[in-house]
């Protein structure tokens, strides 16, 4: 009984240590040079090519996830995304965190309420929706 309990406890401790090591390794291995990205990733992240090698690993990982979703977007959505990438990448981590939290709160609302929130914000700022899109004159 004691031997079984000791073996079980040792296995659980090793499992925890293994998971910790895996997480640490993932973070350390997350940094990639621009030249190491796939062509598809480079296409999606082209607007931030000059900034890429200076970004921290965790930010690169999140942007690579964005790049992997890029082919599934419509051409219009791809255009909007690329127009916003530079300013997004240059925001502070705290600003991006606040943006994500606020956005998740918006997504928790019913769809009609989400539309209303966006309309009210736009009216208050005198802005049009899709304010990040390139202007038609470009």
């Amino acid at each position, binding site marked *: *009984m*004691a031997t079984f*309990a*000791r073996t079980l*406890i040792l296995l*659980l*401790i090793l*499992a*925890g*240590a293994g*998971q*910790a090591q895996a*997480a640490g390794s993932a973070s350390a291995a997350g940094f990639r040079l621009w030249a190491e990205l796939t062509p598809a990733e480079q296409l999606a992240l082209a607007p931030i090519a000059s900034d890429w090698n200076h970004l921290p690993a*965790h930010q690169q*990982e*999140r*942007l690579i*996830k*964005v790049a*992997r*979703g*890029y082919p599934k*977007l419509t051409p219009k*959505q791809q255009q*909007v*995304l690329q127009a*916003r*990438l530079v*300013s*997004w990448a240059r*925001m502070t981590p705290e*600003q*991006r965190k*606040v*943006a*994500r939290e*606020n*956005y*998740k*709160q*918006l*997504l928790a*609302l019913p769809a009609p*309420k989400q539309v*209303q*929130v*966006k309309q*009210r*914000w*736009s009216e208050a*700022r005198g802005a049009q*929706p*899709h*304010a*990040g899109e390139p202007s038609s004159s470009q």
Partner: protein
Amino acid sequence: MNERDFAKRITTSLDEGARQLDPVLAMRLASMRRLAVDNRPAHYHMGHGVAVWAHEHPWVVMLLAISILFSGWLGYSQRQTGDSGDVDILLLTDDLPPQAYAERDFNKWLHLPAR
């Protein structure tokens, strides 16, 4: 005097008392004890053994608890990281620019009453 010595003194005293019991009464007590032991739940002894072992090795229990908590925290952190890829792409293609959602007081718009 530690707990073991104290327990030994008690059992010695009880044994002495049992030896002075009426033989018929002692036999009846013994048969009732056997009946009670035979009818105890099968898992009782195993659970009791683990509890005693854990009491004698508190550092192992503590390490186990820390390991479980740490694993849980890691799992939670990794799930958070996993979520952000989907949220980011939605943010970057939303009707409003990301700067809107980055405003600290943005959530006031979330709580306005319906028109």
